[in-house]
């Protein structure tokens, strides 16, 4: 019995905030101002959603965010496969150096790099462009490392057999080995996609207008100054922002859990 009460409490702590977000988004402004803690809206309305959808170019934000996150995830995997393959399977001069270099960049987070990367991108006129959002994250040292680890488990004989059949190295990497790594790649892809879809820091730094603005940024901007806090609007925007993440989560929970544990233990 005590255990059950505890479970209910845990569920409440983690689910009530979402519920409150939904309820708030259905309240009209007067209720927000005069009865902010009333549990249920007296006169539920979808006005807040109408306002968010009507005033923000949400389609544009959605597109920007999706293209950015998809491109980053795809680019990271596309580039990590050959690099991981070379490091896992091939003998060559300078291998230890290359490997050390890649691993050492794990220590340089985006928050340290952003000052000079920003001035660099400004020099290249890439501020406020999708390319500017994507390129700095084009390579994931962690992804390269994990793919290398996964590839060490693939027997050499398989690769040699393909070579004897006349397969090119590109074919071996993308057509033979990549399918073998599907679980790792799915996990990497999901992890990278979600973390960049949610990213606030870099788009905040790099975007200056609607052109490349992403969804989390736009929703955070809903806390507009000048007319008092309009929480119903902010919460409606927040529902729009978090629903896709929760949907992806519901659909791919298994893969995501794998992604976290996999990332956790370095493959």
């Amino acid at each position, binding site marked *: 019995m005590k255990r059950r009460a505890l479970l209910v409490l845990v569920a409440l702590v983690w689910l009530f905030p979402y519920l409150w977000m939904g309820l708030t988004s259905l309240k009209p402004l007067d209720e927000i101002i005069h009865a*902010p*803690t009333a549990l249920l809206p007296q006169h539920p309305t979808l006005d807040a959603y109408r306002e968010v959808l009507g005033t923000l170019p949400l389609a544009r934000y959605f597109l920007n965010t999706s293209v950015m996150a998809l491109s980053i995830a795809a680019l990271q995997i596309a580039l990590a496969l050959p690099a991981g393959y*070379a490091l896992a399977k*091939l003998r060559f001069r300078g291998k230890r150096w290359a490997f050390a270099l890649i691993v050492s960049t794990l220590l340089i987070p985006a928050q340290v790099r952003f000052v000079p990367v920003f001035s660099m991108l400004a020099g290249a006129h890439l501020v406020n462009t999708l390319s500017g959002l994507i390129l700095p994250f084009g*390579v994931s040292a962690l992804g390269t490392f994990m793919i290398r680890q996964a590839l060490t488990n693939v027997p050499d004989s398989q690769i040699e057999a393909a070579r004897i059949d006349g397969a090119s190295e590109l074919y071996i990497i993308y057509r033979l080995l990549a399918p073998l790594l599907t679980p790792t790649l799915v996990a990497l892809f999901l992890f990278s996609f979600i973390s960049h879809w949610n990213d606030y820091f870099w788009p905040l*730094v790099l975007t200056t207008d609607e052109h490349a603005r992403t969804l989390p940024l736009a929703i955070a901007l809903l806390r507009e100054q000048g007319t008092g806090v309009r929480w119903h609007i902010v919460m409606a925007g927040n529902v729009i922002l978090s629903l896709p993440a929760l949907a992806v*989560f519901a659909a791919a929970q298994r893969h*995501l859990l794998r992604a976290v544990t996999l990332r956790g233990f370095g493959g």
Partner: protein
Amino acid sequence: MKPSRRTDPYWMLLPTLLFLFVFFLYPLGMLIKQSFFSWDLLTDARYVGLGNYRALLRSGELWHTFVTTLSMSSAVVLGSMAAGLGLALLLDRPGRWAAFIRGAVFSAYVVSWVSVALLFLWLLDADSGILSGIWRALCGGRAPNWLGDPKLAPWAVAGVSVWKITGYALVIFLSGLQDVPASVLEAAELDGASPVARFRNVTWPLLRPTTLFVATTSLIASFQLFDVVRVMTQGGPVRSTTVFVYAVYEQLFLDLRVGRASAEAVVFFLVLLALTGAQFLLFRSSEAA
């Protein structure tokens, strides 16, 4: 294996190394260089030697930022680990309810920081927030000003972060619990060991590497807290939530002091490096043990 052509490994690595050079190593070099200049992006840069570092040290800003970051991160790490471990023990069983609650806790880890920050900004609103409403109903009087009191704000923000990342600790601990052999636990139970004793003598020692791992990864991650501070408190009140990344951001974008921002970022990098080094050493010693 021997590459088919001698040049193969090099072109395979070229894109990766190129990216890493352009977006990681070169920026790090630039950062160090810029930290010796005074520059506002708009007018000419001026060489100031160690002036930026000195100014940061003398104003006490560096120390203050470091202490704030360290105490908030420690709270986040300890809180999320305790909650994660407790929940893992509670939820490590089959059944739809346990799975549902595991999902609920983990979902917060998947939702963006911005969502969570906006949500809790509203929940924690000093007067209109539902939490204050509950407080007033239960305790009467005025509810604490969670985000407005410099003594409370860092812990409120840390608490929100705990809510957000407990799912991570939970998942890792759950997978760590898979490594605790059921047979050992059953044997202990047959020997008449109480649940507490079983946890202390069997589960906990076997979870040690997992614990260490969660602790260090989440410490390094929480040193990089930014979104939640930017959205909820903008580093205030009275700079009480100004963590490293926010301080660098503020220096650069709000105050346009590129040099001082760079100097602060260099220090931040060194701190992270030290933390990672400590993590590495801890792992080595725990593996040796």
